[in-house]
Structures are given as C-alpha cells and as structure tokens.
C-alpha cells in the first residue's frame, strides 16, 4: 500500500516540527521514496520562492531602503515612551475626578434626598417596617429578645393602625 499525499506531507513537514520516524514501507518502495523526495523538494522550493523580490538588484534594494528612510524623516521625532504616556493619561483622569467630585458635592446635578415629610403615608409605613426588621436583626445579633418587637395580644401598634 503506497503512502498517501497527507502521509508524504507529514514526513516532509512533521507536525511537531521534529523529524518523524520513516515508515518501513519507504525502504522497500522506490516510488514512495521518490515521491517523498518530490514533496521535500516542493517544500524547499516554496520556502525559497521570492517572486519579484528574489530578482531584485542591489540598486532596487537601496531605493527601497531610501524610501523607508524618507518616510522616517517625514515622521519627525519619535513618540514618548509608554510609561510617560500612561502617566499623562492617569494624571488627566485624576484631574477630571478632582473637578467632578466637588461639583457633585455642591449638589448642582444630583437630586436631594427625600425628607420624611415628602413621603406618602404608605411609604412612611414601609420605612417604619423596614426599620423594625433592621432592629429585629440587630437584637438577634446582640442576643436581644424577639419579644421586644412582638406586639402584645389585643394591642395594636402605630404601624398596624396606619396600615
């Protein structure tokens, strides 16, 4: 059984980059051995193919290099280094932050917090309930009794009356 193209390619260009062991068939089959040489030759030729660049004269190379130097001279001075660029960026961000914080504190943009008198009775009742729950949680953490917030039977709390 002759080697396939893929097998020949695998031998000409090993996948791992290191030469692979040759199959015993190659030592017996002149056709496959010759085909492998053809594959290796083709790979070498592709690697060596330089098209018009390969036929370039020293003068043409010098022209290309001159062109590069001209573009470099046109570009002017080299850019500042990355740390300096980052430093400038960070300084600018800090400056913006320093300007933005006092503006926010002066209350020019943000709405003021609502006072209890602005809230509807329903909202005030909800707030009171939440405060009770928070107090209850605190009492539990500090070992306080649940009875402190449990209404006595037959009595109504202010909140219940409101609800």
């Amino acid at each position: 059984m002759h080697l396939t193209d893929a097998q020949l390619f695998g031998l000409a260009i090993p996948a791992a980059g290191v030469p692979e062991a040759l199959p015993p068939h190659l030592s017996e089959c002149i056709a496959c051995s010759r085909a492998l040489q053809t594959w290796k030759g083709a790979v070498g030729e592709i690697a060596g193919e330089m098209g018009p660049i390969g036929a370039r004269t020293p003068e043409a190379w010098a022209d290309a290099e001159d062109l590069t130097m001209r573009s470099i001279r046109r570009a002017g001075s080299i850019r500042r280094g990355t740390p300096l660029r980052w430093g400038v960026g960070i300084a600018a961000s800090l400056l913006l932050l320093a300007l933005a914080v006092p503006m926010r504190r002066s209350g020019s943009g943000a709405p003021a917090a609502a006072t209890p008198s602005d809230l509807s009775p329903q909202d005030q009742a909800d707030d009171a309930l939440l405060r009770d729950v928070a107090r209850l949680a605190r009492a539990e953490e500090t070992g306080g009794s649940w009875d402190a917030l449990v209404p006595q039977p037959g009595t109504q709390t202010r909140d219940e009356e409101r609800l």
Partner: protein
Amino acid sequence: MIPRQTDPGVDEALLIREVRAGKVESFEYFVRKYQRRITRLAYRLLRDAGEADCAAQESFLRAYQNLNDFREGSTFETWVTRICINWCKDRLKRRRLVFYFHQGPAENDDDESGPRDAAAGDEPSPERRAISREIRERLRQAIESLSPRQKSVFVLKHFEELSIPEIAELTGLDSGTVKSHLFRAAHKIRERLGEFRKA
C-alpha cells in the same frame, strides 16, 4: 558618520540611544542592515511583493516611532521582526475577510491528476517537473488556507527555519502555544491535501 551594516562590532544599543536623542541618521544603519530580511519574511507571509515592501517600510517606521518602548535587553532585529509579523497578521486577517465577503470560501483545485499516482511510475524528467509543480501549487493553496497566526508560526518554523523558542519570542506566544499552532497548521494542511485528492 553612519556605520555600514557590514562593519564589525557595531554597538546597536549606542545607535538606538543616539536615535532616541534625536539623531535620525543613526537609524539608517538598521534599515540598511535588516530591511531585506524583513521584506523577505513579509513576502513569505503575504506572497505579494508590493505588500511585502509596504510591510517592511511600515515596520521600520513603527519601530522608529515607538523606539522609546524598545527594551535594552532585546535586539533590534527581534523588535522589528515582531512588528512586521504583527503587521502581516493584521493584513492577512483583513484579506481573509475581504475574500470571504467577496468570493466565499476557497474552492478546491479541480485538476484531477494526482502527484502520488504519477510519482509511482518511472517518469521522464518533464513529467516529474510537472508533478513537483502541482504539489507546490496544492501546498501553497493549503498554506494560504491557514489562519494568520497558524500561517505565521508555520512560515517561521518551516521556511525561516527558526526554533520554537525563537518563534515564541517573535510572536509573543509561549512555546506550548507555538507547538499547538504548528500541529494544528500541519493537521489543517493534511486535511486540505486529502480534499485535493478527493477532488
């Protein structure tokens, strides 16, 4: 006076310091010494002489403009090669996008004669040359089907004959990732060659 690229013992670090200090002429040494090699590498990746020239010129320009980011421990050649590889990878990505949207996925070669069948016999030399030409064409097409990263790793390994650690340094990948890309590239080419045979 600017040292010639053939002058022995040129202190490249000193020249870089001079360029940083504003002496643009000192950069000419690097252009004269490395532009040919960079252009050839770009050509191997892009297979277009015009684009290869553009890649080389752009790589040197970027290297010059960002010279303050160049670390003293590295070599200028590695630095400019890395810039060139990245430029070519971007170019290949763009080319693939344009190709995909304008023409759709690549078609297989519809030439029916297989190199293996022909190579099995005892052919005269013109036929042998034809086989070699066909293999080259199929291989070239298979290499073109690789992703930009796979292609750059493949070209650096098999055409530029660089070692895995050298490729890792140039591409900014670790050695394991380079090996993985190489393996995938070879696998993909094998698959493509299989498709050729079926066609």
